[in-house]
């Protein structure tokens, strides 16, 4: 089949035309290739190397390997570093776990301090409660021994509409509460 030259065919012919690139390969410094792959090469060295890559399929392949092998090299180096920790060395938490631990430590400390503070308030309140106050609560309205509670609600006098007073009186019979309500005058 006859057709217009495709990109693939053009590319194949161009690479074939550039096959004699041994001299370009001989000149290249692998460190320059790595620097270029990592975006660290600049100036005239960069221009010369890019021109060489454009004319050498082998260099283009090497450049692609330089770009692609970075991640692989990091994985290998990380594994090697992880495996060669000397015996007895203090294990280092993984970054995430360390971050969580660093967050939890002050949180636990704050919770402990808060709990201690609340406990201290209760303790000191019980220790320092005034006797008179307790007595006043007990003697309120002259509570008799067999009475529990009573309330009276009396009308007010003059321009008072209502007055409210709490009195304690003796319960009669089986009554527990005594309650009186008086209308206003």
């Amino acid at each position, binding site marked *: 089949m006859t057709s217009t*030259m495709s990109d693939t065919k053009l590319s194949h012919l161009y690479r074939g*035309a550039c096959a004699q690139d041994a001299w370009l390969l001989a000149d290249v410094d692998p460190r320059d290739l790595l620097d270029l792959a990592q975006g660290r090469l600049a100036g005239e060295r960069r221009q010369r190397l890019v021109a060489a890559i454009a004319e050498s399929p082998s260099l283009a*392949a090497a450049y692609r390997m330089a770009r692609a092998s970075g991640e692989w090299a990091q994985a290998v180096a990380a594994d*090697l*570093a992880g495996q060669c920790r000397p015996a007895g060395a203090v294990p280092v938490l993984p970054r995430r776990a360390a971050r969580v631990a660093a967050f939890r430590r002050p949180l636990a400390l704050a919770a402990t301090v808060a709990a201690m503070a609340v406990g201290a308030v209760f303790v000191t309140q019980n220790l320092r409660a005034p006797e008179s106050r307790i007595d006043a609560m007990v003697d309120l309205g002259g509570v008799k021994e067999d009475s529990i509670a009573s309330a009276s609600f009396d009308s007010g006098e003059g321009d008072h509409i209502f007055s409210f007073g709490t009195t304690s009186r003796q319960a009669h019979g089986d009554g527990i509460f005594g309650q009186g309500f008086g209308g206003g005058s």
Partner: protein
Amino acid sequence: MRLSPPSSKAEDRLNDVLARHGARLRALVIQHCSANQGLDPDDIEQEVRIRLWKAVEREKNSALPASYVQRVVVTTVIDALRRDKPEQTTGLPEPGQEAGVEALLDPVGPVRSATDGQRMDLIRAAIGALPPRRRQPVQLALQGFTPEEIGELLDMTATMAKNLMYRGLYELRERLKAAGLDDIDDE
């Protein structure tokens, strides 16, 4: 100089790690260097392994920086490409001589190769005649780089690289057409 094997412990560590990552390295070589350059992934992996062994033995420590590991890979690939260059430029087999498997599988036969030589010369001349600004984007595109990669290499945006690349390829085709290379059998 004889290479003495590294200590068994360091060797075991390295073996463990490379056993886990070896397949990925072979895949990278197949992806980037096997199709066009004919490198053997197993050879590259073995050579990388030997060089890392030497480094481990020299440093007395199996912890190697990532940059060093990467440089070992790139240097190994470049050395292999340099070694393989003479084989790539070997001429066609003599009559009666057994052709290699690659020659049998290559769709471009000897007769076609002769005409391809002329086409290659024409293509080189046509590319050389392109304006300098379009020449490198076209060359890099023919090497298989994407517009994004070309933009990175030439320090320009991908869009600009794409424009220069397409205009350059159009001009190249026009020049080849003018030289009588507009139609060709295309498998």
